[in-house]
């Protein structure tokens, strides 16, 4: 809430429309980011137990119907998609037509392949949100990271910033291209206290919907209660400042395409070095360079004065 007020305040201060004011407002935001936001305490989340997923793709179908997405290229019960690869031999990813995809990983030493559901992780401090210069993204108190297509300019910085490569863009549209990503069914379900469509549709109960803090406790209890079953890591608990979607696996996460080098800091913290420098330049530069000017033109000034004297 504090964050929102501050943003409103800055909006007000910008009404003057002076760049320098904007820049100092920015500095304030930088310090706000410095004080670790950490997410809304009551926010909801989803715990994904990947050991249970059988790769039926029902969640993909449910997402498609719930979000009114275009017809898929192949039926949702066509499992040949698991053999598809995008550029660079990489597994399928979210697109403008699919906000979630399930990928199959054949892991050595595991009897069955492991299936991994992929969608927006709904970060506590989303990189897309903090990098957006028109404030198109909002982290709702319920935990969803939602997007306002009406103000999006289409700079696509959010796609550059997202550490999980989630946002897709309707490159095919010339008239109204927008970012396409999972919004945790905010409009149709989450807002009314209901779980996302994919969670509800899952026949295997892979996903548990609940308060994020409860899910964290539950996940750790699952890890401890089943010694040897799970890898002792809850992916998303701390990654890039914590995410609303979290994952349990029985094989090391880096073997199933999870980036294990993201660190615990939210992405905005990497930008702070620069943001901290902004007010410094704004305050010091004018004085410094006026001083330089006076010094370097002193001789000239003296020359001009001396004939008079």
């Amino acid at each position, binding site marked *: 809430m504090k964050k929102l007020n501050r943003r409103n305040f800055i909006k007000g201060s910008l009404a003057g429309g002076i760049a320098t004011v904007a820049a100092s407002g920015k500095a304030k935001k930088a310090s706000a980011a410095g004080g670790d936001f950490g997410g809304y305490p009551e926010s909801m989340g989803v715990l994904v137990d990947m050991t*249970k997923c*059988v790769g*039926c*793709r*029902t969640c993909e*179908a*449910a997402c*498609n*119907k*719930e*979000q*009114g997405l275009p*017809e*898929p*290229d*192949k*039926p*949702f*019960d*066509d499992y040949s998609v698991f053999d598809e690869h*995008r*550029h660079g031999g990489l597994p399928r990813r979210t*697109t*403008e*037509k699919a906000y979630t995809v399930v990928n199959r990983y054949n892991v050595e030493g595991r009897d*069955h392949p492991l299936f991994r559901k992929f969608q927006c992780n709904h970060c506590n401090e989303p990189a897309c949100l903090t990098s957006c210069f028109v404030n198109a993204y*909002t982290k709702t108190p319920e935990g969803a990271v*939602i*997007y*306002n*297509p009406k103000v999006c300019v289409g700079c696509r910085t959010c796609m550059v910033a997202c550490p999980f490569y989630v946002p897709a863009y309707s*490159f*095919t549209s010339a008239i109204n291209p927008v970012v396409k990503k999972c*919004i945790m069914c*905010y*409009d*149709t379900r989450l*807002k*009314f*206290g*209901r779980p996302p*469509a994919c*969670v*509800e*549709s*899952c*026949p*295997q*109960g892979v996903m*548990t*919907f*609940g*308060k994020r803090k*409860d899910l964290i*406790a*539950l996940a750790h*209890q*699952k890890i401890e*209660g*089943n010694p040897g079953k799970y890898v002792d890591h809850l992916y998303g608990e701390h990654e890039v400042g914590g995410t609303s979607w979290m994952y349990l696996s029985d094989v090391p996460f880096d073997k199933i395409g999870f980036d294990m080098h993201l660190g615990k800091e939210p992405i905005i913290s990497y930008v702070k070095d620069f943001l901290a420098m902004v007010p410094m330049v704004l305050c010091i530069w004018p004085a410094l360079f006026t001083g330089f000017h006076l010094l370097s033109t002193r001789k000239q000034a003296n020359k001009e004065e001396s004939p008079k004297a």
Partner: protein
Amino acid sequence: MGLKTGKQVGLAALIAMAAPLVLPFSVHGEVFELSSLANLYEGVSFDHDMHIEALEDDCSLCHHHTAGTPPEEPTCIPCHKNSPEADSPACSSCHLIEPFSSANLAISEKNPLLHHKAKPGLKAAFHQNCMGCHQETGGPVGCQDCHAMTEKGEKFYNTGKYAPKPHTETGHH
């Protein structure tokens, strides 16, 4: 700031249609229809007798501790090792049809026992219970091996007569 677009697809019907499961069956000699959740798929004709035979009368393999036998799950044992037979051994007496509805979430939040929060919903309980065993014992594991897809299901999965027309356009990579 909220999105006003986004179609309301009546997926809620998927689960909400299901009526509480009341199964009039005796322990032996029954083939009954598990159809309370039937929606995208038809109900399952479940041969209870055959399963009892195949599992050599070990009820607990499916009915955890509710049939009076000790539980198998390591997380259940500490509390339930001496639990008596439950009033109803039916899956639906414990496993909720809507585990994540606001009302049910409010109840489970008050429950201090974390393990119960991980309790799967009815649909998940069916599938986990059946599939877990079928994978090990060579039972049917394909979706339509147990229940045929309904027309609604074909629409949902964009398959059958609702399958996308084959086209060469691969879309954007």
